[in-house]
C-alpha cells in the first residue's frame, strides 16, 4: 500500500540539512519503526465532515480516537487545529497543499462521517503534504453505529500502516484480569476491552479466582486458569456465548498456563503431578493428551512459534528459570537464555523474529526481547515487578503488567515499543493484570 515519493522533491523543498532521519533514509512520509530515536511525524487531522445531521455527534469522538491512536504510538504528533489555515468543508474538495505545508504538516488526514439508518459510514483520505499527493486510496468503512470506535481505529490503522509499512494494531482487543480488594484477598475477574482500555466488559463474576487468560488466534475464544472446582484447572471460553468448559480435570493434578496453537486446534499447557510440572498438548477436537516434556523441573510458560512448529517455554531444569525451545512435538530442547538472572514467560512474536520475556535480576523485574537464538537481548523496562509481556498483532508493541510494591501494591497494564520507547499506562477502570492481546479484528 505505501507509496515512495521521489526523494528529490523533499530535498528540493526542505534542504537536506532540515530533513529528519526518517526522511533522509526513505523519502517523505515513511517511518522505520526499528530505527533509533524517531522525530514524530507531524500530522493534521481537520474535523471530519459530518455529511448529515445524525453524523454530527460522532465526528469529534471519531477524530479523538484517531488522534489518540496515532499520537499514542509516539511516531506521530498532531498539529493543533488552531494552527490550521485551510478548513475542510467537503470530503471531495481539492486539498490546498500549500496551507498544510505552511504549518509543517507532513501528513494530512481528511474524512467524513454519515449516518444511514442504524449504520455509520466513515471515510477518509491520507495525503503526503510535501509531495502533494494522496498516499493510497480513499477508504470507506461501514458498520452499525455503536461500532464508531472501531471505525476510527480502522482509519488510524490504515494511516499507520501506509506510513510505517507495518500492520496496524488499533482495532484489536485485550483480555485481562480485572482486580479489586485487599492484597491478601484479591477478587479477580476475567475482562475484555479495546486495546486502548475502552469498552471494558467482564466475563466472569469474581467469585472464583482466575488467572492468565489467552486469546485464541481468531479472537473468538479464550483459555484461562480458574479455581472454580477448588483447584487450578484450565478452561476454554467462547466469547460470543460466554460459555466455558473445563479442559482437563484429572484428580491429583493441577493444570495451568494454557495457550493456543496458531491454528487454534491444540492447547499447550502445564500439568503438575506430585510437585512436578511438565508440558502437555491437548487436541481440542479429540481431547487427546500428549506429554511433551518429562523432566523433574517446572516446565511452564509455553508459547508456540507463529508457524506452529516450535514451542518456547521456561524451565528451571538448570537450577533456575531459563528459556528453552523445542519442537512442537516435544523431544530435544535448546536453551536460549544465558544472561545473569531468571528468565520466564517467553512469548513468541507474531512476526516470528523475537521472543519477549520477563527477567528477574538483582531484585528488579524487566520486560525484554531476544532473538529466537537468544542473541541480541534487550531489556525494555525495569521496575519492582514487571511481568507477562503480550505482543500487539503487528509485533511492534508489547503490553505487560506492572505491579507496585507495598501493602497497597496493585497491578496496572502498560505498553512499550519493541525499541524500549514510548512506555505508556493503559487506562483501566480498576487494577489490571495478565493481559493477552488479541488479533487485529477483520
Amino acid at each position: 500500500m505505501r507509496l515512495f515519493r521521489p526523494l528529490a522533491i523533499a530535498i528540493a523543498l526542505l534542504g537536506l540539512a532540515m530533513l529528519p532521519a526518517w526522511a533522509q533514509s526513505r523519502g517523505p512520509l515513511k517511518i522505520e519503526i526499528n530505527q533509533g530515536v524517531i522525530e514524530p511525524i507531524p500530522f493534521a487531522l481537520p474535523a471530519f465532515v459530518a455529511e448529515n445531521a445524525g453524523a454530527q455527534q460522532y465526528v469529534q469522538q471519531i477524530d479523538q480516537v484517531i488522534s489518540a491512536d496515532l499520537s499514542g504510538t509516539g511516531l506521530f504528533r498532531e498539529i493543533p487545529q488552531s494552527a490550521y489555515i485551510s478548513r475542510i468543508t467537503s470530503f471531495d474538495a481539492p486539498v490546498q497543499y500549500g496551507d498544510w505545508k505552511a504549518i509543517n504538516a507532513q501528513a494530512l488526514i481528511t474524512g467524513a462521517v454519515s449516518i444511514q439508518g442504524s449504520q455509520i459510514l466513515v471515510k477518509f483520505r491520507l495525503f503526503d503534504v510535501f509531495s502533494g499527493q494522496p498516499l493510497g486510496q480513499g477508504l470507506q468503512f461501514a458498520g452499525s453505529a455503536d461500532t464508531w470506535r472501531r471505525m476510527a481505529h480502522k482509519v488510524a490503522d490504515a494511516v499507520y500502516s501506509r506510513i510505517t509499512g507495518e500492520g496496524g494494531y488499533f482495532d484489536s482487543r485485550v483480555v485481562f484480569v480485572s482486580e479489586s480488594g485487599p492484597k491478601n484477598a484479591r477478587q479477580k475477574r476475567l475482562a475484555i476491552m479495546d486495546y486502548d482500555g475502552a469498552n471494558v466488559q467482564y466475563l466472569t463474576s469474581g467469585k472464583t479466582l482466575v488467572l492468565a487468560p489467552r486469546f485464541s488466534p481468531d479472537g473468538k475464544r479464550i483459555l484461562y486458569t480458574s479455581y472454580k472446582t477448588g483447584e487450578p484447572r484450565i478452561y476454554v471460553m467462547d466469547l460470543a456465548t460466554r460459555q466455558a468448559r473445563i479442559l482437563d480435570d484429572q484428580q491429583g493434578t493441577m493444570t495451568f498456563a494454557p495457550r493456543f496453537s496458531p491454528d487454534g486446534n491444540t492447547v499447550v499447557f502445564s500439568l503438575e503431578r506430585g510437585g512436578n510440572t511438565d508440558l502437555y498438548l491437548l487436541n481440542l477436537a479429540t481431547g487427546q493428551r500428549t506429554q511433551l516434556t518429562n523432566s523433574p523441573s517446572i516446565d511452564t510458560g509455553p508459547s508456540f512459534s507463529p508457524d506452529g512448529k516450535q514451542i518456547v517455554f521456561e524451565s528451571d531444569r538448570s537450577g533456575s528459570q531459563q528459556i528453552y525451545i523445542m519442537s512442537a512435538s516435544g523431544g530435544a530442547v535448546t536453551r536460549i537464555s544465558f544472561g545473569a538472572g531468571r528468565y520466564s514467560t517467553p512469548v513468541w512474536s507474531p512476526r516470528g523474529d523475537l521472543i519477549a520475556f520477563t527477567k528477574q535480576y538483582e531484585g528488579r523485574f524487566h520486560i525484554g526481547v531476544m532473538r529466537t537464538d537468544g542473541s541480541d537481548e534487550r531489556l525494555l523496562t525495569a521496575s519492582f515487578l514487571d511481568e507477562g509481556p503480550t505482543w500487539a498483532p503487528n509485533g511492534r508493541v508489547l503490553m505487560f503488567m506492572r505491579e507496585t510494591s507495598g501493602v497497597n501494591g496493585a497491578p496496572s497494564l502498560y505498553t512499550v515499543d519493541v525499541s524500549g520507547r514510548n512506555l505508556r499506562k493503559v487506562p483501566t477502570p480498576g487494577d489490571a493484570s495478565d493481559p493477552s492481546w488479541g488479533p487485529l479484528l477483520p
Partner: protein
Amino acid sequence: MTRHLTKALMLIAVLGVAACNNPDRYANGTAGAGAGANAATGISSSPLGDPNDPKSIAYFNQTVGDTVHFAEDQSTLAPEAQQILATQATWLARNSDYGIIIEGHADERGTREYNLALGARRASAVKEFLAAHGISATRMRTISYGKERPIALCSAPQCYAENRRAVTVLTQPGNS
C-alpha cells in the same frame, strides 16, 4: 443463651461441611450461603473447636503448628520445618478422622505461573514428608495458590519469608 450458641455453632459446622468438597478455603462465593461475607472479607470460617482440646483443629493450628516456611525459590524442608511436620504427623496419626489439605504458597517475587508450580512443589514436599511419617496419602490433597494469597502484605524480606509457606489445613471428620 447456650442453646442459641450451640445452634450457631451447628450452623457454622454445616456451612463448613458444605464447603469441604471444595479445597479452596479462600473461595469467595462458590458455596452459596455465607458466601457474601466471604467475598467481602476474603476470610473463610470453619469450626476450630476449643484450643485446649488436644483433638481440636485450633489445638493443631496453634500448638502443633500448621505452617512451615521455605527459603527463596526452594521447596526443600529445612530442619525446623521437618520438626514441625514430624509433630504434625504424630498428631494426625492420633486424630485420624480429619481430612488434610496441604496448601502451597509463594512470595510475590516471582512470575505468576512459575509460582503456581513452586507452590505445588512445596505442598508436595510436605505431603511426601507426612506420607513418609505414616500418614495415608489418600487422606491428603494438595493445592497451590502461587503468589495469589499472601498473608504478610509488605514488600520486604520478612513478609516474603512469611508468605513462602505450606499450610496444613484440616477438614472436619468424615468430610475430607
